[in-house]
Each structure stands twice: as C-alpha cells, then as structure tokens.
C-alpha cells in the first residue's frame, strides 16, 4: 500500500514539533475530513531557516508533512512557493491514488505559512 519511504517518514517523522516564535504559520485541512496539518517557518534573508509541522491524519498525511519540511528547509521563499504536492509525492516514491488529494496537503500548508509570513512582514512595514 505505502512505499518504504512513506513508512520511513511515518515511523521517523523529520522536523516534527512547533516553533513557538515562528515567523509564519499555515494550517490546512479539517479534522472532520480526517486530515489537519500546521506548518511553522522561521525565515532569514528570504530563506526558510527552520520549519516544523504537526499533523492529525493518516500515515500519508504524516509522511507528506515530514517530507515537505525536509524539501522546504534552506529553500528561498520563491523556491518553496513552487514546491508542489506532486514534488512531495514523487519524493516519497509515490502515494496511493486515493491519498493524492485527501492527505497530500502539506505543500499547501507550507504555502499558507509563507503567505502568513509575507502578510505579517507587509503589515510591519
């Protein structure tokens, strides 16, 4: 059902946790649907210096969250905005078809966190 990589990220999620003084926070999904994830980012010189996640959901939801944080770390905001759901799924050696849409939300969560950061930054100016 799941690739070895998905199971690895499910068993040993990377960057799991919260960033209390995050520069941007993005939450996507809905517990009613069975998947909810929050992505926290720290930004320095337009680069993602640190990123963490918390996820309620199935194995795929946890694994895609973990992989997204790994892919995002160190990227410029522009590069991170281009990170797609497909990139995340490909990096995990694929996901079952039914999971592609319902559980593969973490890239959206990352984009929401970046938008939150840009909004806050704009407000400060």
């Amino acid at each position, binding site marked *: *059902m*799941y*690739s*070895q990589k*998905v*199971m690895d990220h*499910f*068993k040993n*999620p990377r960057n*799991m946790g919260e960033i209390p003084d995050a520069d941007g926070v993005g*939450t996507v999904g809905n*517990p*009613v*649907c*069975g*998947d*909810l*994830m*929050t992505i926290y980012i720290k930004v320095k010189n337009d680069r993602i210096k640190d990123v963490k996640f*918390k*996820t*309620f*959901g*199935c*194995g*795929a*939801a*946890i694994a895609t969250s973990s992989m997204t944080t790994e892919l995002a770390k160190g990227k410029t905001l522009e590069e991170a905005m281009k990170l797609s759901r497909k990139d995340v799924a490909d990096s995990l050696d694929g996901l079952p078809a*039914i*999971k592609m849409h*319902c*559980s593969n939300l973490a890239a959206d969560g990352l984009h929401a966190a970046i938008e939150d950061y840009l909004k806050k930054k704009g407000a400060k100016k």
Partner: protein
Amino acid sequence: MFNKDIRRMTKNNNTGAQLLSNHRVYLDHSASNPIDSRVLDAMLPYFREHFGNPSSTHSLGQEALEALEESRRNVANLIGAKPSEIIFTSGATESINMAIRGAAFRNRNKGDNILYSAIEHMAVLNTTKYLVRQGFRGTSIPVDNTGVIDRDALSKSVCDKAVIVSLMYANGEIGTIEPVREAAEIVHEAGALLHVDAVAAACQIPIDVKRDGMDFLTISSNELYGPKGVGALYVKEGAKIEPLIQGGGQEKGLRSGTENVPGIVGMGKASEIAKAEMNPESERLTALRERLIEGTLENIRESHLNGHRNQRLPNNANLRFSYIEGESLILSLDMEGIQVSSASACTSKTLEPSHVLLAIGLRHEEAHGSIAFTFGRENVLSDVDHVLSVLPPIVKRLRMISPLTPKELLS
C-alpha cells in the same frame, strides 16, 4: 494446528509496515476469519472424490445430495430452524439481497416502505437504495448513542405501509446486541416482515429464530470459521419471496445454480463446531475483551468505548482515542504485529467515516479515531497483554504529532 495456521496466515502484511516485533496478533475477526482445520478436512473430499452434482440420480450425485442435506441440518440446528427453511447462497450479501429484494417485490401489495436501522451493513443500505429507485420508499430507524435501535421510532414507522424491516442481531463494528425479539413483536403487530442480519452474532450468541420471531435471517460461513463465498438465508415456512436468480430450480427454486457442495459442507461443519463450542468460547472471548477494554480505559487518558458497555458481542472492543486518526494507529499497531480495523475515512473506499459511528452520535473527528478490536478462536490472554503494552506509547507518539492534542495531555 489451528494456531500455526493463523500465525502463518498473518505473516504477510501488505501495508508496507515492517514488523518491529515477532509477536503476531490478529484482531480483525469481523473482517475475515481463518478456516478451522476441522472444516477444511471435512471439505476436501468434496472437491475430487465426491464431486457429484446433487441433482444427479446416480450414486455419486446422491452422495453429494446427502452431504448437502446434512449441512442444511447443521446450519438449521445452529439457529433453531427447520432444515427446509435454510437456503444456501454465495454469502451474506446475497442472502441480504435475497431477503429484502425478494420480500419487497413479492409482497408489494402489502406495502412499499423498507425500514432499516441506521447501523445496517452496506448490503442492506444499498439494497434499499436500489429498491427506492424501483419505486419503494426507504426509512432509516435511528439508534441511541450505544447503538440500540429506537423502538418508538420503529413502532411509528412500521405503521406507515412497511413491507419489510431489516435489523441486526448484533453490529459487528461496535458490538452492540439489538433487542430483536422485542422488535419482532413490533414488526409483526403491524403485519410487516422482519429480516435480521446475524452475520456477526451467529458464532457467538445463541440464536433461536422461533423464539426470536424472525421471518428471514442471514448468516455467513466465514464468520463461523468456514470458507468464504458461502452463506445461508433462513426463510420462515410460509414466508414468500421472489428469487433473485432464475435457473434449474435448486434450493426450492429460490436460488438456482448447481450447489457449491464443498463450500456448503464447510459451512455445515463450521455451524456444528460453532454450536458445540459456543458457550465456553464466548465466555473465554468475553474475558479477553474485558481485559482489553479495562486495561485501555485505565491506562490511556481520553480513550473511550464505543457501543454498549455490557450488551455487546463477546469478541468486540471498539475503542476511540481522541486527537488521533485511525489509519496511523493501524499502521503503528501493524508494525507491532497487531492487525485491527478502523472505520476511519482513510481506510474506506468512500473517504467517509463509518456511518455506524456517525449514527451513534460521534463527531467526524471522533469517528476517525476509532478502532475495532475483534477477537477470535486463536487469540490468547498474552495477545491482549501485548496490545496493552504497545498501545499507550503508540497513542502517545501520535498525540505528540497531532496539532489537536491539548498540551496538558502530553505532560
């Protein structure tokens, strides 16, 4: 022998989980049961040696016919029916279709309303939907928060031109046992027919179709540790139904097609064993269930039992863990060698959480975090202890990952 069989059968797991433990525990008996080796032994001669067609006049055919009728007696004996009231089918889904569609079409002059409890199996719900497309009406009867049917709602709806009512003897997902005898009185007083799905109950609690007042009753062979692909429908003497399948007139014309003799022999043997061993086995399973329920509720905060506390199937413990999702629990348990079922959206084909859990009033996110542990013949006390040792750290880890978990629960 039996234990060895199951250990071997559960060795291959397909979720991609790598086992962390050598202790393998199968706790998904409401999904599938291993065939009892005594049942398999009884079946084997009917594949090659005694392969006759029961409709044939010669001795080989008559041997098969004899075996078929012996099985019919054993199945009838399990549920207190006459052998002539047992129709063999390809499984519970066919039995349910036959009873509801067959009775609705045949008795259309008596009413057009199909009643069913809100926690029925998809075979009942989708058969009703089909009948609604054919001009019937469908009425769902609510259950309370333990899963017990609302008798007042049943009394009211059954008077609205009900033709057939479909209820469960016990629900295999949440374990709740229904007051079927009381329901039968209500249904018959209004002149309607009663079908009862006894798939989950038949192996575990004594059923007597005469005492309980049933017109139709569905049972499945696999739930009795018999082969898959075989089931039976009890049709009360005098009850009229339209057959689903037309052909050579086998099974009193109600289910044409050459009989699946090896499968039916297996179901007969499985019924005989279930009847003989039911009392001590149900007592044993109840003890396993109680140890799991009590151990979980004591050791894991914000864990809850779904279904009725006492009025439940001996083998069923449906437990709910707040703030986490069922599939990630299943994967984690599978890595520890424990195989269970979740009714969460992520494990279903529809992405919807179980209609059974929603019917007992759970919120969607609560339904997502529910797991059904269903015990069976090969389970022993040390299996429960294994679950109880790995479950708290698994729940804790997933709660750490979840953004919904309140901080004080993690301390």
